[in-house]
């Protein structure tokens, strides 16, 4: 339905004009610079950069740690979300408010805090050290930091879906003879799957591009514990703009892919739900 005549509600022109101007100047123009620079490089040039062993290693480390962290976050996040929706506890409200802390805390602060916790000379670090595990300055540390920043994404994705879940479905399952576990596995989790997947993807996408909270604990040794975002900065400091651009474009493409996946997911779920209801 397109209206070719005048609109009833006022201010459309002004609002749209402001938005488009702001978007163009602030978002599109800088991104265009990125695209232009990568264009100069050409596809061949970009591939050459991305094929460098150090770059590949950085992507591998970042990808694997982000994946690991997101998976851990699914387990932890669903548990916490379940607690927040179904649990009974006097501190529940407090916990609910605190879950958003990684959102609110500046990434640099998280970074140094996590390092202080997990460094070999710190409390937890020492304890783990005795078990033969070194966390800080290794990929494990990177994963830990990514778990920290990703947890709220999963919790906040699953929480509303769980709250909306119709209790009657579980009651029906119980009346048909399912045990608690069966009902959980066969009825509840499948229904929560889209929300869980959504949270997972958000946490994953965020972890891929994360800098501040990871860079302090990461160790940053090329080929072993160097993350992609740090590599971009390193290249910049070496005035290798082309290299930095190529990596940035690859990273951006990955993030966009994640966002598109989420949107597509939400669209399919929306469609399925409409079919049922």
């Amino acid at each position: 339905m397109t209206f070719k005549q005048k609109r009833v509600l006022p201010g459309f022109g002004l609002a749209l004009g402001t938005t488009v101007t702001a978007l163009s100047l602030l978002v599109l123009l800088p991104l265009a610079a990125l695209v232009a620079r990568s264009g100069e490089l050409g596809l061949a040039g970009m591939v050459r950069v991305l094929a460098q062993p150090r770059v590949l290693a950085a992507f591998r480390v970042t990808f694997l740690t982000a994946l690991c962290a997101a998976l851990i976050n699914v387990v932890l996040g669903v548990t916490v979300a379940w607690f927040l929706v179904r649990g009974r506890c006097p501190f529940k409200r407090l916990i609910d408010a605190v879950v958003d802390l990684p959102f609110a805390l500046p990434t640099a602060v998280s970074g140094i805090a996590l390092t202080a916790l997990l460094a070999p000379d710190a409390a937890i670090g020492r304890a783990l050290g005795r078990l033969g595990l070194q966390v800080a300055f290794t990929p494990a540390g990177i994963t830990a930091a990514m778990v920290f920043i990703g947890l709220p994404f999963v919790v906040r994705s699953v929480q509303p879906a769980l709250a909306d879940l119709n209790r009657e479905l579980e009651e029906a399952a119980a009346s048909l003879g399912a045990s608690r576990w069966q009902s959980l596995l066969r009825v509840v989790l499948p229904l929560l799957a889209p929300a869980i997947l959504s949270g997972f993807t958000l946490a994953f996408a965020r972890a891929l591009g994360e800098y501040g909270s990871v860079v302090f604990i990461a160790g940053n040794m090329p080929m072993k514990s160097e993350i992609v975002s740090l590599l971009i900065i390193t290249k910049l400091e070496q005035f290798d703009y082309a290299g930095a651009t190529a990596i940035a474009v690859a990273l951006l493409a990955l993030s966009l892919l994640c966002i598109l996946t989420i949107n597509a997911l939400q669209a399919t779920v929306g469609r399925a739900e409409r079919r049922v209801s």
Partner: protein
Amino acid sequence: MSKTFGAYTALDDISLEIPSGELTALLGPSGSGKTTLLRIVAGLETADPDGSGRILFDGAPVTESPVNRRRVGFVFQHYALFRHMTVFENIAFGLRVKPRGERPLRDEIRERVHALLKLVQLEQLAQRYPSQLSGGQRQRIALARALAIQPRVLLLDEPFGALDAQVRTELRRWLRHLHDTIHVTSIFVTHDQEEALEVADRIVVMNKGRIEQTGTPDEVFQNPASEFVMKFLGDVNVFHGRVHNERPVFTGDSSEDGSVRLLVRPHDLAVLPQPGPGISIPARVYRVMTAGALVKIELLDGQNRLVQVQVPHETYRTASVHAGQQVYLAPKESRLYGQSSERLEYVI
């Protein structure tokens, strides 16, 4: 004027005149364009610019005026009360946003609001919030709010659509009574023909973006201009038949493709034990319901379609029937329509 939404024609070349001071109903099924027409009058939609569409209030053109200059009072189906304002503030809104020069003083506003609250009989709710009111109360407040600006035209979009049946009937009567008190030119949209017949001074029957008929309730009911109007207003029985020897025949064996349809209202059918001289339609009695103002008889015709007949109790007493009985129906007043809904004359 016409109005299209993309490929969908909401209004097809409409021309209409509404008498001042009267309560006019725009009646039709969903998709008939009645709400679109109402919103165009209000200025909440605009007609297609290609035509020569114009809107005139008392002869003065308002087509170019934006909605906030037209001084129309609009009552929405879902009230659209300002949720964060009290009832008082809602009603006072139209007065408070007037330009500096025209704005009444605080005390005058307060007086006017209270007068309106009194008019809608809800004075005690002045400080409540819309969420604390029932549906019927909200609609009355919405009406009071619209009246506060002394509108030239009052427009109501299915005002009782969102309410329970009983509240709807009450409010219907209340609206009529209100109109008799204040006499502002009003147009209201409804799909409920009973509502239109009961409340309006004048009914405009619409279908698929066109006006089928305009007239008083009596006119549209007794003299429907088309098959659609007759079917839409009041109950009607439809008998399918065909023409035989220039006479319509309804033996009950004809298929649905039979070329003519006889439309008869339930109270215009006489139930006879034997076929009469004129048109006689065979049917079998299914149920007789004597509890009510009229006796209602349900019958099944030759194609097992339900036929409804209403007879006064005195008439029934002299000629009662029982379930399962084979009878013959003779139409008193009826209309015959042909293949393309054209009216046909016939001889009994």
